[in-house]
């Protein structure tokens, strides 16, 4: 029998964006609650991050790779507490980080909001589903989340409703961004410097970015906001107990109520933590895995997995550009084609994002051919002479795209997990349209050669919608307040809740949503 601890009010599972924001807000709004957060991984040691080392490049394909499956194969142990994911049934490979801070430890910190239309796709466009609330209901939480994380950017973007002045000026565009902007200007298209959860100047006790480059291998000087350095210090100061290296095994559900969590502690002992309410925030894969393993009965659980289908076009330029200088995901973006235009042959839109360029090893590895004299020529043509535009499309909720369990029991004690995802014809049309536009802008900017990557497998950062909100228990897992239809004191507080996903990076919305779910719970308890 697992040891049984004294009951607490709320157990939160997962210390990433959703869990951290939820804990910080709930502890602020309901300070008398005893809140415990279980996190399967530990704190990251910035002194051990690769950016200090001469062999930093190889870390990007080994212990600091974005994919947990790659990290598990690395010759040295990763600081991320990973579990394997059977991704053989998906063209996109799930990416994440398991530890305090979750995937904000190794994210790119591009921090856009959804558009108002993203919350009403069924009403406006007859596809997907409406969220149970709208953009302007979430807007105050976007603002709170921005303030907590610290955002560099520029107000006045006409692609969005007015936003408050950004806390810090935008990150510099560099030669790469200025060159890309030339293409957008030539075509008369929208572009804007990104909102980034990265300090462009010193802010809130954290340094300004020094444009070192490898954001996805952690930020050594805390210029990049990750929730281990933003929300967690607040939450802990307010009394939230964070228990690292504790792996939730099961949410105990009895008579339609969640009564506690069985977890494996840092010493490998099984422990039962009783609680009055439980909130799960383990991302679209981890949350679904745990809830499926716990026997939560919901026909929608694990289904409607969405990633944001992604593709690239890379343009080669004669002039010397920056290469891998600056935050990888944060130069500029265009929402010229974000809203629906039926003439394009698909509904909803695409996000075009000008990123910074790859490090030499990453560029060399993806060349075709990757060896021989032609590889050298291609590497010289590209390195410091290329601009990549990422095309993100909005995939629509489809029940057959899902997270499921395998017959294996993994080393962490939980059933194995697999993802099954098929790129829809609709998504393919969206991506192809976006690729055409990206190629157009690169050529307008002066590219002498362009190369397409029609599908980018290692872009599965956005793990969304597997425990979606809604009104109908047949097609959704939770209600609008994040409470499971079948077990009302069991909540979800991460991107699993999204009914639809827009075409932009989700972290800003995950944080805002977790703040709202925390407020709703605090209100219910009061």
């Amino acid at each position: 029998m697992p040891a049984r601890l004294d009951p607490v009010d709320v157990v939160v599972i997962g210390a990433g964006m959703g869990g951290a924001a939820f804990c910080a807000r709930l502890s602020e709004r309901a300070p008398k609650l005893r809140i415990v957060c279980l996190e399967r991984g530990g704190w990251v040691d910035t002194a051990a991050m690769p950016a200090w080392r001469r062999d930093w490049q190889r870390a990007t394909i080994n212990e600091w790779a974005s994919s947990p499956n790659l990290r598990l194969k690395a010759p040295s142990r990763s600081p991320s507490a990973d579990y394997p994911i059977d991704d053989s049934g998906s063209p996109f490979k799930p990416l994440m980080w398991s530890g305090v801070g979750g995937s904000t430890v190794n994210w790119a910190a591009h921090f856009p909001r959804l558009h108002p239309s993203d919350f009403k796709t069924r009403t406006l466009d007859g596809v997907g589903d409406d969220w149970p609330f709208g953009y302007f209901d979430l807007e105050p939480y976007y603002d709170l989340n921005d303030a907590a994380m610290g955002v560099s950017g520029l107000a006045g973007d006409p692609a969005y409703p007015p936003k408050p002045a950004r806390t810090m000026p935008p990150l510099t565009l560099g030669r790469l961004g200025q060159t890309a902007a030339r293409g957008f200007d030539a075509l008369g298209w929208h572009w804007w410097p990104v909102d980034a959860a990265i300090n462009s100047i010193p802010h809130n006790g954290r340094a300004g970015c020094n444009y070192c480059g490898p954001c996805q291998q952690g930020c050594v000087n805390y210029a990049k906001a990750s929730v281990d350095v933003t929300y967690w210090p607040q939450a802990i100061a307010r009394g939230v107990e964070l228990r690292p290296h504790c792996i939730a095994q099961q949410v105990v559900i009895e008579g339609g109520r969640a009564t506690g969590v069985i977890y494996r502690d840092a010493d490998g002992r099984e422990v039962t933590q009783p609680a009055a309410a439980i909130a799960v925030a383990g991302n679209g894969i981890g949350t679904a895995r745990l809830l499926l393993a716990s026997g939560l009965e919901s026909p929608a659980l694990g289904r409607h997995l969405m990633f944001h289908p992604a593709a690239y076009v890379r343009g080669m330029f004669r002039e010397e550009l920056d290469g891998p200088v600056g935050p990888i995901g944060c130069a500029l973006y265009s929402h010229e084609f974000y809203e629906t235009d039926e003439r394009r042959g698909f509904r909803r839109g695409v996000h075009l994002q000008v990123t910074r360029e790859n490090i030499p090893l990453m560029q060399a590895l993806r060349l075709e051919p990757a060896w021989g004299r032609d590889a050298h020529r291609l590497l010289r043509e590209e390195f410091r002479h290329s601009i990549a535009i990422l095309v993100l499309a909005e995939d629509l909720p489809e029940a057959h795209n899902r997270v499921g369990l395998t017959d294996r029991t993994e080393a962490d004690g939980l059933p194995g997990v697999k993802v099954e995802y098929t790129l829809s014809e609709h998504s393919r049309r969206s991506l192809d349209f976006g690729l055409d536009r990206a190629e157009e802008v690169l050529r307008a900017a002066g590219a002498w050669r362009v190369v397409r990557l029609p599908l980018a497998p290692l872009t599965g950062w956005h793990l969304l919608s597997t425990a979606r909100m809604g009104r109908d228990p047949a097609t959704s897992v939770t209600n609008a307040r994040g409470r499971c239809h079948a077990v009302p004191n069991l909540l979800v507080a991460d991107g699993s809740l999204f009914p639809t996903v827009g075409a932009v990076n989700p972290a800003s919305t995950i944080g805002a949503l977790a703040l709202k779910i925390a407020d709703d719970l605090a209100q219910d308890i009061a």
Partner: protein
Amino acid sequence: MTPEFLAAVVDTLLPGDDALPSATRAGLNPTPYAALHRAVFDAIAAQAGSAEIFLRADESARNAAVRAVERAAPDAFRTLLTAVLSDYCEAPPVLTALGWRSEPPQPTGHAVSPFDDATTERLGRVRRRSGLWRAP
């Protein structure tokens, strides 16, 4: 498996050109690869006829032998290539030839000019547009 054969294989993978050094000229020591990727080297030797024949072969014949092994055992070949490229891309002569630096990203980072007023003014064209988002 001689050091000469191992060197010939890695220099077939990364032969160098007018600007970039070959793998061995960049300072890579091919001997450690043999322990972890023995099967690939054996397959290349077998494909060529023997290690000695591979050593005597011209560039075209060496490339053909390597390409055949790449086709026959893509995963194992890719693992070797990844190991060699990992060493190559952090070799100072290679980074210098690419116009990059061999120091790690930190603590210095990169000096860049901040976002400037000229860029903000340039955005005036975009700022004056309206109707890019739809009211629900």
